[in-house]
């Protein structure tokens, strides 16, 4: 929603970045196929649990997957385009409301001065 938003930080960039890596594309495909735990995913790659978890976190930031804690497991499921888009839109709306809150604070500070001015 915000016009002067830094484009390098947009959702589109995050999605491109997330999909630029072959392992992450593979993780996403597996999650689309069926939801599974991070540890189950890690067993399928020649890399550490922590490394797989980092890749999952990048996909999560791009709203392509959601991670959910179930007991001791962290389950990864792919977000459909609908959820991913809802998250992207809510990100825009969130920025609008952050700006609104800051503008309210400015209006309150200014009306403070005006009211003080009225009394003098």
């Amino acid at each position, binding site marked *: 929603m915000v016009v002067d938003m830094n*484009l390098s930080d947009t959702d589109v960039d995050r*999605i491109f970045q997330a*999909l630029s890596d072959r392992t992450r594309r593979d993780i996403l495909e597996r999650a689309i196929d069926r939801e599974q735990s991070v540890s189950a995913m890690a067993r399928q790659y020649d890399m550490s649990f922590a490394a797989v978890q980092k890749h999952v976190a990048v996909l999560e930031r791009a709203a*392509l997957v959601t991670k959910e804690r179930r007991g001791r497991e962290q389950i990864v499921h792919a977000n459909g385009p609908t959820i991913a888009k*809802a998250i992207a839109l*809510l990100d825009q709306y969130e920025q609008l*409301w952050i700006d609104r*809150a800051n503008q309210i604070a400015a*209006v309150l500070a200014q009306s403070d001065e005006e009211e003080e001015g009225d009394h003098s």
Partner: protein
Amino acid sequence: MTVISTTKDPESLTLTIVAEFDATPERVWSVWEDPRKLERWWGPPTYPATFTRHDFVVGGESRYFMTGPAGNRSNGWWQMKVIDKPNRIEFANGFAGDDGEPMPDMPPATGFATFVATGDGTRMTAMTQFLDLAQMEMMIGMGMAEGMAQAIGQIDVLLTSASV
């Protein structure tokens, strides 16, 4: 720190923001009630809002427009559902056509705000509930630059190709 937290729920299509202000609930209330104060914060910084009507009573309606950098206008409307001064408001917030009047085939989003006195200020919790994705896109697009709207549109294309 004005903004305390924001919560986005993509399942229920809601956004909740909690902010604290160094003012009494009555004064925070006034930025919603007084249209001249309201229009100083409702629009994004580059899309200032102008309220041409603000009937702040239950059932009362508002009309506003936001003016973009190129002079382009987006029109919107409110209808107040709950007014419990200075604690709580609930209102419908909809998209209006070029004539500034509500579009009959476009149901509004619902806005909720509560105001609670804290030690030395007010905690405001504002929540917006959208009905569906199309409505959310339309409402959020109201004050959006063309480029940003296109970027969001691109997401559709990307996700469709990514899942192939």
